[in-house]
């Protein structure tokens, strides 16, 4: 989590640390208070998930389970569909991320380092796509998907998420910034475009590629509307869609709902823990600051 602190900030921290003032303490307390408040919904969900079903609707409420039990988790895992949806989310997100990186990198290189007739015009058309929110296209896109038979397939869920003009733009701008000399040197050595891309551009672009990859992954993992439209077979649903649509035959069971919700949130929280440095720095690298 300390990744955000860049070098100047670190220096600033050293300079400030010795002074513990009243104001500083107040800020710390205020920060802690807000942070705990912000966690209440999740803590409450966590507490609920360990309650027996009958205890969940007790009035007045119990902050902590009186008789903690893993029953809700056991039931959710035994039903198995959450595991299935996690697998689907993984397949779809990996597919989307890999394809987005491949396709956007190639195109970004094409626009940044080569010229072909009409390239500016094509780039303009592709970039204009940023103005088109995918939400606006769901109805015609679904119609088109039924026509070509991609509804209720992984491809149908994944492919429309791949050609992201924003990612193309970010990568192209980064490639533009790589000094020409590096590329020229490689070209003189007789390297082709693919070779230059692979052994010169990509290694230099590792941080921005990581940022684009992580953001694409997170976005695709949490995407709701399109996967919701494109899948009706529960065996193909992603985590958000499955959790949001499929019901228990027994009506609403809050402890199980909360257990499923927390399990459904877990993978990305873990990804965040692993890649927090890149996630946070990605904001800077993607030129978003």
């Amino acid at each position, binding site marked *: 989590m300390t990744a955000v602190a860049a070098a100047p900030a670190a220096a600033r921290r050293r300079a400030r640390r010795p002074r513990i003032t009243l104001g500083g303490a107040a800020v710390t307390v205020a920060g802690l208070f807000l942070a705990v408040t912000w966690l209440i919904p999740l803590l409450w969900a966590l507490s609920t998930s360990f309650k027996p079903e009958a205890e969940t609707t007790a009035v007045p409420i119990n902050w902590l389970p009186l008789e903690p039990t893993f029953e809700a988790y056991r039931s959710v895992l035994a039903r198995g569909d959450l*595991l299935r949806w996690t697998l689907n989310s993984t*397949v779809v997100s990996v597919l989307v991320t890999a394809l987005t990186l491949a396709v956007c990198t190639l195109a970004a290189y094409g626009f940044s380092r080569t010229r072909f007739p009409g390239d500016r015009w094509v780039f303009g058309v592709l970039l204009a796509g940023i103005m088109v929110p995918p939400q606006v296209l769901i109805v015609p896109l679904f119609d088109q*998907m039924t026509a070509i038979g991609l509804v209720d*397939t992984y491809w149908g869920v994944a492919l429309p998420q791949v050609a992201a003009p924003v990612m193309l733009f970010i990568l192209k701008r980064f490639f533009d910034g790589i000094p020409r000399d590096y590329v020229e040197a490689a070209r003189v050595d007789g390297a082709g475009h693919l070779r230059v891309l692979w052994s010169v551009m990509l290694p230099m672009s590792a941080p921005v590629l990581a940022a684009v990859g992580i953001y694409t992954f997170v976005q695709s993992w949490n995407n709701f509307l399109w996967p919701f439209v494109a899948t*009706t*077979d529960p*065996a193909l649903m992603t985590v958000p869609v499955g959790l949001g649509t499929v019901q228990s035959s027994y*009506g609403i069971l809050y402890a199980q709902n909360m257990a499923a919700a927390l399990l459904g949130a877990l993978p990305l929280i873990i990804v965040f823990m692993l890649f927090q440095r890149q996630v946070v720095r990605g904001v800077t690298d993607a030129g978003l600051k």
Partner: protein
Amino acid sequence: MHDTTGPPRRPGPYPLSRRTLLAGSLAAAGLGLAGCGSVADAASGRRALRQWNLFTGGDGARMVEMHDLYRREHPEIELRPTTYLWGIPYYTKFLMGAAGGRACDIATIHLSRLRGLGIDRLIDPVPTDLLAEYGVTEQTVLPNIWNNCLVDGRLYAIPLDTHLIVTYYNRTICEQAGVLDSDGRLIETTGTEDFTEMLRAVRDVTGQVGVSLDTYGAWNLFWSLYRQAGGDMSFDGGQVTMDDDRALEVLDFLRRLAEEGLAPTDSNGPATAANFTNEVAGLCIQGNWEVATFETAGLDFGMRPLQGIFGEPLTRGDSHAFVLPHRRTPDDAAVRAAVEYAAWMLQHSITWAGGGHVPAYLPVTEDPAYLDLRPQSDYRDAVRDAQFDPDAWFSGSAAPLQNDAASIFSGVFSGATTPEQALARFRQAAQQLVDTPSPV
């Protein structure tokens, strides 16, 4: 779903049957990503049967019970039921899944919705010979229900039950109110005065209201009483044709009930059931599906068909039915399994009847086990006169007309809207639906 948690399996070391070959080539064509349709389990030798439904609560539990038995009797079939949220979310998934053409093998719907769901485009016809092979024919279903399953003479739905608006009565309270006969049944009433007189007696015992009603879902009661009064409704020729005087009579009656404190002014579905179990009311007019709730609550109660308040004791009915969603690629074996499943469910609907629904399959309704099921079998004959919703693509359970009506009529109970205003708004809403180009 225990067998589906892996990626689509490749054909295993089984002898190459046509199905495994097909599965293999399809998997290859989709790069193993074609999803797990009915082919996914070909390798395990079990046919997957994907069923969609909108049942939760008591109905859901009963369906699970029936499915457990079905699975024991059909080891060769892997039944995969999915429940979606009742109402618009369910029908949304149904329509989109059927449009995609590979979502599920069999689905439940309300029969009142059949004509609005895309006959032939989204719903395939039921092969009657196949259905007869499994023992379900025109002769085994009441004629009025069977006819509702036909569109242009072809069968598109397999009816599971008929559910009705009924009157529940709390024996303890009604006894004290002096409205039980010597057999412990609610006394017969005819006409509005008779009925309100009874409500007053009951109200005097509970001290709160006489009858518990769903004021946010009043279409059911309105349609029952409007039909009793002899009202008709049609949407032919781009016009809303209805009997304003009779509609006003019914709406004014509902207003008076609430105003006089005989019925609640503000009560949604769960509250309506709770008001009866908590003895806030001694009577309850609601769908028969609440029987399970009241049995669980341990109440001493009876059920009877809705009284004739404006005339003949007619009552609104609707049926849960099975349909075959359209498939993109024909699969005769899957259709056979689906039809067999539906027939099996009909024939075992004695379990289903426990939830208050009257089985559509006549042999079950004649079974002594059903006749002994009380109070569930006490209103079975009302099915013969069940009043289905008016015929239009926007009409039926959870369809726009019903949603609009429910929202408008709730104001009549709360006093926010006069019956005249409610009628005018209903007409306006209905006219807007009529003016909307039909999607089917």
